[in-house]
């Protein structure tokens, strides 16, 4: 169950490199750094530009060393996932293999996102809640899509996520799917 693009919205966001790709508030676009705190409706981004620009290129706004609180609703985030060696990934990949993998992941995550219900909804009320949440976030872009085109770094996958898909208490985001172990 490694951290893959499909599982990103259910996985831990703290510590991940992040960039604000689009936002209702134009001042937030271009914020890049590391997620340090997650709340139900916001992410706190520690703007360490030196580390962020390595992953996200020059399209990064200069903010100095500070922590910015970004609302999830109405914002599109871009996460950089560094594919680590070991585990189920097996031996280190060549450039070509990494490219193939990225392509494959993009396809699968696209299909998966489409049938995923909105995070934060309990498993019993899937369809109607998903509809409601989608209606709430009407101003944001439809769904979410992945792109692997923006970076050249080897073994880095860039995942674009609509912030409305992350609206949930941090501890509950993981348990949207399947039977709860809680009785």
């Amino acid at each position, binding site marked *: *169950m490694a951290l893959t693009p499909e599982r990103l919205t259910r*996985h831990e966001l*703290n*510590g991940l490199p992040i960039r604000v790709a689009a936002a209702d508030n134009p001042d937030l676009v271009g914020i890049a750094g590391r997620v340090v*705190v997650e709340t139900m409706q916001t992410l706190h981004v520690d703007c360490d530009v030196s580390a962020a620009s390595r992953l996200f290129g020059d399209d990064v706004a200069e903010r100095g060393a500070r922590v910015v609180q970004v609302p999830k609703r109405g914002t599109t985030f871009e996460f950089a996932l560094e594919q680590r060696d070991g585990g189920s990934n097996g031996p280190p990949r060549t450039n070509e293999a990494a490219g193939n993998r990225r392509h494959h992941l993009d396809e699968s995550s696209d299909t998966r996102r489409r049938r995923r219900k909105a995070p934060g909804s309990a498993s019993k009320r899937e369809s109607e809640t998903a509809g409601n949440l989608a209606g709430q976030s009407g101003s944001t872009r439809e769904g979410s899509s992945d792109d692997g085109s923006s970076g050249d770094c080897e073994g880095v996958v860039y995942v674009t996520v609509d912030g409305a898909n992350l609206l949930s208490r941090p*501890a509950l985001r*993981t*348990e949207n799917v399947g039977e709860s*172990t809680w009785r």
Partner: protein
Amino acid sequence: MPSIAEERIARLHELARDATEAREFDRSREYVRLARRLDERHRCGLPREFKRFSCDACDVYLVPGLNARVRLQSGRVVVRCDCGHIDRFPYRD
């Protein structure tokens, strides 16, 4: 195959330790609390190292020599957090 919750706990473990080492104690507390909440929800347990090196009273992640004092007595390890809370763990020779 660890579940997502277990992976999140492992990540939070690293983050909490790094936060304590960077003297960001309140941030470390948030990571520890989130990991404990995940354990409660998923009933997957916390690693022993996580349990022993987080304070039961103030939730901060403990790094010996930085914000924790670790001493050996006969038959037990005594871990004292900077907040004053003391944990004792038995050991066998």
